[in-house]
C-alpha cells in the first residue's frame, strides 16, 4: 500500500525565526492584521512510502529523519502532520 506522510520541520522556540518574525512584523502588522500574535516558518516534506500499514510508514519516516539528520535536533523540531493512503 502507498502512504503519503506529511512532515514539518521548524526551529525550536529557543532559536529565533527571523522569517516568521518578518512576515508578522513587516507584512501582516503593516497591513493591519493585528490579531496575528505569532508566525513561525518551517520546511514541509511530503513523502510517498510503500508500507504494509500506516504505523510502519510513520515509523520509517521517523527513523529516516533521525538517522540521516533530515532535521537538526539541536535547532529544530519534527512533526508528522498527517498520514493518509495515497
Amino acid at each position: 500500500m502507498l502512504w503519503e506522510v506529511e512532515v514539518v520541520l521548524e526551529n525550536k522556540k529557543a532559536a529565533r525565526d527571523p522569517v516568521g518574525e518578518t512576515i508578522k512584523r513587516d507584512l501582516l502588522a503593516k497591513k493591519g492584521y493585528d490579531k496575528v500574535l505569532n508566525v513561525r516558518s518551517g520546511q514541509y516534506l511530503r513523502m510517498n512510502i510503500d508500507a504494509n500499514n500506516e504505523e510502519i510508514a510513520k515509523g520509517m519516516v521517523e527513523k529516516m529523519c533521525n538517522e540521516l539528520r533530515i532535521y537538526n535536533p539541536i535547532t529544530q523540531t519534527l512533526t508528522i502532520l498527517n498520514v493518509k493512503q495515497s
Partner: protein
Amino acid sequence: MTIKIAVISFPASNCDLDAIHVLNNVMNVEATLVWHNHFKEKDYDGVVLPGGFSFGDYLRAGIIAAHSPAIDEARIMLKDGRPIIGICNGFQILTEAQFLPGALLRNESLKFVCKWVNLKVENNKTAFTNKMNVADVIDIPIAHGEGRYFTDNLKELGDNDQIVFRYSNEKGAVTGDSNPTGSMDNIAGVCNLEQNCLGLMPHPERASEPILSPKGTAHGKIIFDSMIEFIKRRSA
C-alpha cells in the same frame, strides 16, 4: 618534512582554490585539491573543508556534504588528532557531521552579509590559534547567509574552552554592534574538546596576504601558520 594538506572539493564548493593558493603559494606546503568521493585520509597531515554552497545548500547548509565519504575519512583524522579546519560552509558541514557542537542558522537580518570584521581570540591552545595570544584582535572577512551560531548548551561550550573566536570591535570589546549575524554570544568559531578541529565562519584564506586586506594585514595567515606549527609538533 613535506607537509601534505588536502582541500576537499564538494559540488558547489567555491573557496577551494583560494585555500589551495594560500597553502601552496603563501604557506609553501603541499596542498592538493581532492574531490570529496576520492579523499583518502592516510595521505594527509591535515584537511581543509572550504567555503561555498556544497550541494546547493539543499535541505540545510552542510547537511548533504556531512554524509559524504570524505567525512568518514575525516572522522579518522579527527580521532587520531590531525588538524581539521572548516571555513564558512566547511564549518556548517562540521556541525552537521557532529565533529563540532551547535548549528549555524540563517542570519538574523535574513541578508547575506559580506564585510571585514574583527575577531577576538578566546582560546590560543588550539591547533589553529597556537601562534596567537588570548584577547588578540584579528581582521578577517565574512561572507555568508547562514552563520548565526546556535547551541543548546552555551555554558558547557564556555566551560570546556571551546569558544575560539568572538566577533568584537577593533579594541576587542565583544559588543552587540560588532555581531554581524545575531550569532549566539557573538560566537564566530568553535573547536572540539580535543582542540584539533576548528570551525569558523570568517575566511582566513581571504586574509592571508596584505594586498587583499583594506588595512594591509594578513591575520588569516596566522591560522594557517598555527596549523603548520601544530603538524610539525605532532611529528617531532
